[in-house]
């Protein structure tokens, strides 16, 4: 099971009829009481939404990045990309710093602001269902093949197949294939759609690289600065000792041996 290809979801804006069965199924499977019609923004009790833009429905949910920012920034490893593909959260580890929410390029994680013992909430691609060999609730509920479940590889092949089959209907780009190192949730669109949150300016390099470039240098910086400080300390002290031995007082006022405090 563990050596299987990582899974993902493909959402096809062109095929989608906007029935919101996916949103409803998501709410039901998580036991959230809410109105699927009114679910336009993600919340701690709403892991996926559907809004209509220029007559095309757009789903929003965790992208399950291949190299997730949230996993990289979490100080305690509460967020992890599993071997199966989904990025999942472990509330028992979480300290509640909310750096994941700040760092997520898609603004996905939500917080339980009104709870005394709060947790981060987001889509987990129904990992429990997946481990039972079932599809995520949203994919199972989709009547039109607009939300498709499969391995990321299969989904990419399927996406390009759809684009090639009807090039007039599709914008020739699979959102999430390369952006920020790739996401496990992929999008097909009829035209360029900025509100999907894939910003061309951010490029195809995973964001965690930006902090790691600096962080990985710290041990070196530490060794060099500690050695430099020790050298400076030795030199300045030696200078005073020499001055004292020669009967002068150190250039910076009192010689070290005369110190009281």
């Amino acid at each position, binding site marked *: 099971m563990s050596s299987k290809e990582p899974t993902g979801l493909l959402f096809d804006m062109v095929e989608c009829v906007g029935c919101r069965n996916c949103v409803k199924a998501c709410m039901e499977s998580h036991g959230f009481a809410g109105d699927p019609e009114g679910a336009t923004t*993600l919340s701690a009790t709403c892991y996926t939404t559907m809004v209509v833009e220029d007559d095309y429905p757009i789903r929003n949910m965790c992208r399950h990045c291949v190299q997730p*920012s949230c*996993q*990289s*920034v*979490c*100080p*305690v*490893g509460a967020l992890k990309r599993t071997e199966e593909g989904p990025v999942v959260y472990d509330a028992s*580890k*979480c*300290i*509640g*710093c*909310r*750096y994941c*929410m*700040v*760092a997520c*390029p898609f*603004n996905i*994680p*939500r*917080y*339980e*602001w*009104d*709870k*005394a013992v*709060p*947790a981060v909430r987001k889509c987990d691609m129904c990992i429990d269902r997946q481990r039972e060999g079932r599809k995520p609730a949203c994919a199972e509920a989709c009547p039109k093949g607009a939300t498709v479940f499969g391995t990321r590889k299969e989904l990419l092949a399927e996406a390009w197949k759809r684009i090639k089959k009807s090039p007039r209907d599709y914008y020739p780009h699979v959102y999430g294939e390369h952006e920020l190192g790739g996401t496990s949730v992929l999008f097909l669109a009829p035209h360029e759609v900025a509100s999907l949150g894939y910003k061309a*300016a*951010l490029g195809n390099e995973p*964001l*965690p690289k*930006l*902090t*790691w470039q*600096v*962080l990985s240098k*710290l041990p070196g*910086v*530490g060794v060099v*600065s*500690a050695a430099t*400080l*020790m050298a*400076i*300390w030795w030199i*300045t*002290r030696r*200078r*005073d000792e020499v001055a004292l031995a020669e009967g002068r007082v*150190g250039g*910076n*006022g*009192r010689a*070290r041996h005369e*110190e009281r*405090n």
Partner: protein
Amino acid sequence: MTNQIDSRFGFWRGTFYLLLGVGLVLTVMRFTQGLGSVTNLSDRYPWGLWVGFDLLCGVGLAAGGFVLTATVYIFNIQRFKPVVRPAVLTAFLGYVMVVTALLFDLGKPWNIWHPIVMGNPTSVMFEVALCVMSYTAVLALEFSGMVFERIGWKRAWKVQKAVTVPLVIFGVVLSTFHQSSLGTLYLIVPGKLHALWYTPVLPIVFFVSSAMVGLAMVIVESHLSARAFGRQLEMPLLSDLGRVLVGVLGVYLVLRVFDLAYRGVIGQAFGLTYEALLFQLEFAVGILVPFALLSFPKVRANSHGLYGSALLVVLGFICHRLNVSITGFEGAQGGRYIPSLGEALITLMMIAIGFAAFRFCVRTFNVYPEEAHEPVLAPVRVAAEVPAAVLGRAQR
């Protein structure tokens, strides 16, 4: 005169108790009903005043500790020795306050120790957590000398003396790490943080500005405590610090301008947008005006000129940290984040307790070595006196 002081004490004591009382109620609310009950934090703005001010500014404003200990113990510039102890005390209290503020801000503060055993090495927050914990311990040890001296534990005092230099070196390395890392935290949000503040050199910007504000804080604090405790100002010494400060300000100015120019966004600084205006405020108040003022030896030699300039540096620094943590996000996140009254009051309570603790330590320990000692006052009385003493010029 005495009556005047008494009534002022009464007023400040009342304010202090009021802050403490309201703060206590808010604290109970925050821990029983969640962060949402007292803060304006939201899914769009998960970090607000407590991260932007209490954490980012708190750590920066306490930088005087590592700057001054390095100056005296490593660079062996002994004439700055008189200001080391107050700087170490400020740093220690500052870090204790930062950690306390974190206990309010963290969603599950009882898990604050998790990074020690569950550390994720790719996380800047993990690195900051370890450094802040270690450095708070280092500061406690640096401060412990004053305590041992006061209670007469000669052997402990001697041991503390003996390990001062390694302790200082460790402290400076830790400070270099986490002062810069607070900037590194924001490197992962190129799509969210405004171009006027997002730069690959954020770690360097944060480190240089911490050294800068550390120096400024030593000057500000010397003036405040001179007023509060009726001490003489060490003017020649502080003027020297002012000269170093103007040098660091110059480096910081060049760094910021060069960075903006190199990234081709310097034009955005001159607009009339919301971001541009707050950038201009930060730059003028915190860099240009104090740099110009402190360039004149006359200003540096004048106690009011020096104090005023240093205060501007501190205010500009606070403005920078709030711009990075709040203003810079508002364009990308939409809407505005304005701290709630509850957030502000808890922050104010923390500052008030900090002042009181400082006052208590100065009265109890030999913080200003050449000073004669007054008897120790009850902490509550001390706490009530602090704001009055700090603000009341008439007392002298």
